[in-house]
């Protein structure tokens, strides 16, 4: 504490001033940090009730995914095209490369493009939530409460998604996807997106039990221009989502010396292709 001519009174005065300063600072800071998630009202829930019925679980059309991988290829740029050709060649000769074997999330837009697992869609006030069956395609949060993308948002696997309803179509805008995540057209054909990906989606019922996800994807570091595609999901009402832990496949069940039930890691092949050792 500095000695001042106020003597002993100075520290007390200083504490008072400091306290006031904190109060002023707090008052100044408050308007900058807006409430992102206000309390929901009965009217908010009533509005949710007017949205289209997307209940049940949705099964991706894998055959259409496979067809489109060749019939509607993205406009790959010259830098990545040789790698894509190489991966298709490996696939066609029965030596597909494992692109997702680390069980990291498929991320956006690969979840929508190549996912083989079911998903469900939840509506709550101000938000649409996509829940996938496997932990490699587990969760997307789409904010529909009118908020913009944050000015400074840290890149994530699924990016930052905002959406709004145009009639019965959910319009979604997604940015800030991690550059290391794979832009995939098949499980064995993918390249890192290398950043600046922008995904626009229009999601709507195309029939009683058919959901279409129309995508327009900009990926300026791997594509020469925007790419459009539609992914198809079919409704299933007789079953629930089943837990799918991706990395479980790297382990087998066993029992330790004390009789405990345990997981034991299975050795993996180096080249990423499946192999079977002779017993």
């Amino acid at each position: 504490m500095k000695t001042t001519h106020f003597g002993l009174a100075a520290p007390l005065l200083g504490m008072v001033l400091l306290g006031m300063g904190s109060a002023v600072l707090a008052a100044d800071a408050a308007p900058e940090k807006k409430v992102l998630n206000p309390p929901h009202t009965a009217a908010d829930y009533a509005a949710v009730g007017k949205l289209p019925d997307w209940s049940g679980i949705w099964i991706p059309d894998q055959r259409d995914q496979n067809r489109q991988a060749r019939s509607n290829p993205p406009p790959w740029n010259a830098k990545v095209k040789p790698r894509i050709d190489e991966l298709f060649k490996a696939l066609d000769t029965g030596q597909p490369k494992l692109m997702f074997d680390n069980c990291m999330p498929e991320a956006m837009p690969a979840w929508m493009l190549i996912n083989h697992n079911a998903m469900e869609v939840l509506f709550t006030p101000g938000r649409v939530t996509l829940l996938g069956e496997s932990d490699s395609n587990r969760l997307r949060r789409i904010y529909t409460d009118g908020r913009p993308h944050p000015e400074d948002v840290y890149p994530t696997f699924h990016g930052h998604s905002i959406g709004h309803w145009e009639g019965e179509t959910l319009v979604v805008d997604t940015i800030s996807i991690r550059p290391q995540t794979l832009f995939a057209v098949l499980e064995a054909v993918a390249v890192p997106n290398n950043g600046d990906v922008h995904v626009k989606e229009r999601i709507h019922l195309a029939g009683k039990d058919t959901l279409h996800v129309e995508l327009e994807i900009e990926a300026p570091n791997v594509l020469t221009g925007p790419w459009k595609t539609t992914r198809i999901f079919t409704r299933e009402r007789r079953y629930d989502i089943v837990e799918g832990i991706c990395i479980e496949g790297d382990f087998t069940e066993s029992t330790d010396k004390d009789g405990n039930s345990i997981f034991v890691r299975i050795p993996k092949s180096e080249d990423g292709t499946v192999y079977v050792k002779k017993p």
Partner: protein
Amino acid sequence: MKRFLSATLFIGVALTAPAQAHHSFAMFDSNNQIDIEGTIKEFAWTNPHVAIYVAAKPIAGKPEAVWAIEATSPGNLTRMGWSKGTFKPGDRVKMTIRPLRSGEPGGAFSKAVIVDTGKEVLLKNE
């Protein structure tokens, strides 16, 4: 218990389950189907791909071997009517598979019949 432990580890390591995380099924020859016949050794109801180990009789010049057969995820199979109890160790089966292109004793599941009950096990979308 010790004996059981080594047996379990033997199955886990020696067979080297093909059910590796998140792979394409292109290593299986989709234009070719073969029939194997044998006994279920293990039915691994695990993600992301289920694995069925069949101690199979010699086939097409190949000696007796344990074949590692893969199918899709427990979630997808549940919706095709399968469960963790669809196959049990000791079940005698006739199974149609799409073999590994490498020629090793493995493949992708296509269909099966459990010999003693006559029950057919299918993939609904085939």
